[in-house]
């Protein structure tokens, strides 16, 4: 089995049986920030603690990326294999609105307010065979 590595350290718990996105929560004003940061952009304080974000929320807004972006885009695709992908902000209650890729790219199946859940899936394969894991939002049943 191939080795699975997260796309960036500190974005989500990995490896984990129940992976979750990680935010920093300001202990002074209560504001959550994703990705976790060392200070709070609401109150400028530095009294922050890393915590897990909820895995379910609602789609706040969305679009579909129809053309293949230039670098720094790095998906392992070529212009021939490129598939349009959805991007959206998902409102995670009590947390923050997180921007992420969507597993759905059909505009007809996306609508503001729909229920979404976070999933962690292989995004690309490195030359050494490592599978790079990223987070995605998928319409929730």
């Amino acid at each position, binding site marked *: 089995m191939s080795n699975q590595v997260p*796309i*960036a350290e500190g*974005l989500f718990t990995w490896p984990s049986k129940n992976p979750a996105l990680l*935010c920093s929560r300001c202990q002074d004003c209560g*504001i959550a*920030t*994703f*990705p976790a940061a060392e200070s709070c*952009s*609401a109150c400028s304080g530095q009294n922050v603690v890393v915590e897990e974000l909820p895995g379910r929320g609602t789609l*706040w*807004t*969305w*679009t*579909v*990326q*129809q*053309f293949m*972006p*230039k*670098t*720094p*885009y*790095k*998906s392992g695709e070529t212009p021939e294999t490129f598939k349009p*992908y959805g*991007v*959206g*902000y998902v*409102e995670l209650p009590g*947390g*923050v*609105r*997180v*921007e*992420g*890729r969507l597993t759905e790219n059909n*505009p007809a199946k996306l609508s*503001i307010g729909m229920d979404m859940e976070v999933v962690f899936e292989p*995004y690309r394969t490195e030359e050494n065979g490592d599978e790079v894991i*990223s987070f995605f939002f998928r319409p929730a049943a």
Partner: protein
Amino acid sequence: MDVAIVGIGIHPFGRTPSRSGLQQGAFAARLALQDARVEWKDIQFAFGGSASSGSADALVNELGLTGLPFINVANGCATGGSSLISAYNAIKSGEYDLGLVAGFDKHDRGAFNADPKELGLGEWYGEVGMMLTTQFFAMKIQKYMNDYNISENTLSKVAEKSFINGSKNPNAWRTEPIGVEQIASSMMVNNPLTKFMFCSPSEGGVALILSSADKAHRYTDTPVYLKGATMKSRRFGSFEVFAPSQALEQVDGPTADASKAAFEMAGVGPKDIDVMQLQDTEVGAEIMHMAENGFCEHGEQETLIQAGETHIEGSMPINTDGGCIANGEPIGASGLRQVYENVLQLRGQAGEHQVPNDPKLAYTHVYGAPGISAVTILQR
């Protein structure tokens, strides 16, 4: 000390293979000097910006080495607005009374390539394909259409108007009118926005000569006064480009903040403005910026645009030179193009794109990454 614009110059926008970005800037600067009937050696200071054509202060190599202080400004799409505000403050302080503001650029074709690290973001953000300004504008208008019932047809109408105005402006890049159907059916870029609804990177240069108001009549018979000039960055809670997350509670963005401050500074209100140039990176931006700048209520745009009120002959003429959509966006020059157009309008020299009824007050607004906005209010 009030500040006046006493000279303006422009290098046509679009594609000019024979001239570098810097040469386009120098071209504009020479026209502005001529317009103000002054020589380069008379200029006491300069502010300027260019995103991808080298340092603006290299203009001294083209214009002459006079020893003047020339400060480079880099503020994304708000570069021109920021240069202008810097020059405004330099004169207002009493330190100087004649200065130049210049902006120029020459970009490659295709969407801008942003580097996450420059904005303090992780590389993962670019790798997964979210480092695109076009996505932000698409998501912002998508939400706005949902909240305020703006139709897809209205999106196309905005671009149609931009191309009509561009066809009347000899300095514009896109000079052919394009119809609503062709706009709506052009390639989808980021839903709901199609190719013809976006501006593209282009080339061009603009320069302005500013003087203290008490000396303005030495240089021109038609001074245009800067009654308001403000610049704001985002506050916590506003929805901005290149944001991996945003707060649950939303506040007004930098556009609304800069607009309110500019109206307060000028002592006038949105109803007093006769002609306005609003940042139109794409059609949705123009629609949302109408309300964010205070010119209508959220949602009123649907009726106003469908009734043609934002056309040159309408009650609130917007982007009378074709805006970014018909001129493209050379980052360093774009905000100054708006000011150039407003000076033409206030002097009554805008030719085919002149708004009727002797405009007296004009408004410019730029917005750029990662959430900054600059506004000016001009009066003749």
